[in-house]
């Protein structure tokens, strides 16, 4: 047969809790009948999302009042972050984030004020505590997936039943490093999950202009990697797909790709004004699909939630957020020494030690003895 098919691919889209908050009962259960999420879990995750949003809102205000630098809001993407975070095992699996999945980082043990500290221009916000398995926020787009691949590879080499999960946006899939990370991960079958938050925009560039592919999910076809598209504002779908991918990886089944279709409800960052480039109507339509609203409707319909509970939660969340900010702002300013001390492990090279001690780069301003000038010259 001179024309024959040598390959076929099909991309599925998974939705369990639809826009009207109706649950697909069948998909909400694993094949063995266990629920993908128990009521208690849904309740817990919902409250978590609300608390995260409260910090997000407050962070925005902090920036506006000049108490923090640029900040990228997570608003609208909480179900994706929380769902993936829930699917990964805290203290075991490794999170390799971008900057729009605060909720997952916090769930996995990063003190909440760390993220604020980062955006306050303080590296100590990246000083991941011992036992917290994650890398710091990554500002250069698309670069961290290679690190995730390497981390997962180390797990495989050491035969540890651990998985790395890395987060990135739709825009990040255009970078060459994304391609190389996907290819390495698949070629070496490492336990890595690639979780794309397709929030439809990369600053001002819409998803359709970013790439001509019909879906982001199909990019994994290039690497022969299992891939799926999920409704990223549907907590159930995210948890199910992420759990599938993570547990397959843990069991030695190699990497997977997940495209979570979601939306960035806020500006790109506080330095951005999205009204310049996107339609109010589009934003409005997505407001209605806000994952918090959807989950609340679901819980209320199931009588697990009511307005009074919500009011109490909102108050509590606001208070907690204020406390997070207080903690971040209460940390004393970093000392200049920090700038030097972490350039290399101690001891520092002599020249750097001299720069640190004298806070000078010009040799006349440096300690004469150290600068190699004899007394007579100094």
């Amino acid at each position, binding site marked *: 047969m001179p024309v024959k098919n040598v390959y076929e691919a099909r991309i599925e889209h998974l939705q369990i809790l639809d826009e009207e908050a109706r649950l697909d009962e069948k998909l909400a259960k694993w094949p063995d009948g266990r629920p993908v999420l128990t009521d208690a879990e849904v309740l817990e995750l919902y409250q978590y999302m609300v608390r995260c949003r409260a910090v997000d809102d407050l962070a925005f205000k902090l920036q506006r009042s000049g108490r923090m630098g640029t900040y990228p809001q997570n608003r609208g993407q909480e179900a994706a972050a929380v769902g993936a975070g829930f699917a990964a095992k805290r203290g075991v699996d490794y999170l390799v984030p971008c900057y729009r999945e605060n909720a997952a980082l916090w769930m996995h043990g990063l003190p909440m004020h760390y993220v604020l500290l980062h955006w306050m221009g303080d590296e100590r916000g990246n000083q991941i505590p011992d036992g917290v398995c994650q890398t710091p926020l990554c500002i250069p787009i698309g670069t961290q997936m290679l690190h995730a691949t390497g981390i997962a590879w180390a797990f495989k080499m050491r035969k540890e039943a651990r998985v790395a999960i890395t987060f990135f946006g739709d825009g990040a899939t255009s*970078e060459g490093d994304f391609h190389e990370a996907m290819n390495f991960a698949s070629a070496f079958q490492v336990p890595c999950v690639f979780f794309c938050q397709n929030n439809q925009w990369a600053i001002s560039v819409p998803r359709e202009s970013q790439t001509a592919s019909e879906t982001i999910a199909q990019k994994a076809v290039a690497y022969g990697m299992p891939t799926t598209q999920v409704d990223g504002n549907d907590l159930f779908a995210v948890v199910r797909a992420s759990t599938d991918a993570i547990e397959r990886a843990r069991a030695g089944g190699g990497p997977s790709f997940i495209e979570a279709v979601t939306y960035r409800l806020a500006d790109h960052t506080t330095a951005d004004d999205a009204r310049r480039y996107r339609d109010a109507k589009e934003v409005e339509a997505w407001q209605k699909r806000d994952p918090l609203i959807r989950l609340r409707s679901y819980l209320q319909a199931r009588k697990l939630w009511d307005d009074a509970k919500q009011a109490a939660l909102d108050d509590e969340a606001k208070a907690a957020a204020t406390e997070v900010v207080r903690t971040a702002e209460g940390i004393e300013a970093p000392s200049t020494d920090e*700038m030097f001390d972490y350039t290399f492990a101690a001891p520092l090279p002599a020249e750097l030690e001299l720069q640190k001690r004298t806070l000078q780069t010009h040799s006349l301003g440096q300690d004469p003895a150290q600068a190699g000038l004899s007394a007579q010259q100094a």
Partner: protein
Amino acid sequence: MPLMTLVQAINSALAQEMERDERVVILGEDVGLNGGVFRVTDGLQAKFGPDRVIDTPLAESGIMGTAIGLAMAGMRPIPEIQFEGFLGPAYDQLCNHAARYRSRTRGAVTVPMTVRVPWGGGIHAPELHSDSPETIYVHQPGLKVVCPSTPYDAKGLLLSAIRDPDPVVFFEPKRVYRSFKEEVPEEDYTIPIGQAKVLTEGTDLTLVSWGSMVFQCLEALDTLPDDMSVELIDMRSLYPFDTDAIVQSVEKTGRCVIVHEAPKTCGLGAELATVLQERCFLHLKAPVQRVAGFDVMMPYYKLELDYLPNAQKVAQAVGQCLAY
């Protein structure tokens, strides 16, 4: 003459050249409808259309590499890299391809393009948004590198860069994008690449800088005693740089302090200092001094002002060099 900020001057040069030469196209991340994250290309897409002011996918090597192809095929592309830190992914295309095509084809294939890059620290930006990587492009044969510090120079140098038959890296000191306005002619004018500018004349010491550090130097001058006569030179072009200008000045003054943001070790300051000791050896009354960034990662913004040279450090170095 209208008063313009650096941003406005660059925008005006771009608009003018696109009007004049239909081969000129702008491409980069968010340069279109959004006008660039610093609004440098504001209004250009509305004026010239999305085929000439092009929002690209998020991929710096892609921007640089396709710009090379465009240039090879007769266009005059102006790729924008959103921040100097993101030149990293484009390093290979810029240094190993754009810079070499003319030489490796003995002139058959050339790459006339101008790479615009917001550059330098001091704006409270996140990581990798405040670096000063000029040295590595100066070190790369086949590239020209400019870094104007004022609106007037920016327009004149940008027009030269776009019309240059070879690739030019055009660093824009973002810290002074909007810090002041000056008179900038509406009409077309160019400033030749390779010429420094003497900002203040003096006889005791030569102060050399570029980019936003020029303003730290100016501030330092204000704090110096009146009897110190310092000549301040803004390099403006980093490759080729104006050897004659600094040599002539140092032959006169016998002392020199060079100020730059980039880490000291192997910064461009080292090259200038070396050239000075090579060419003005018998005139030098003191070692050429550098006031530069420390040899550490550009810190996040809480410490960035501790990292960056400032007027006080410059003044101190000048004082010590004069006292040598």
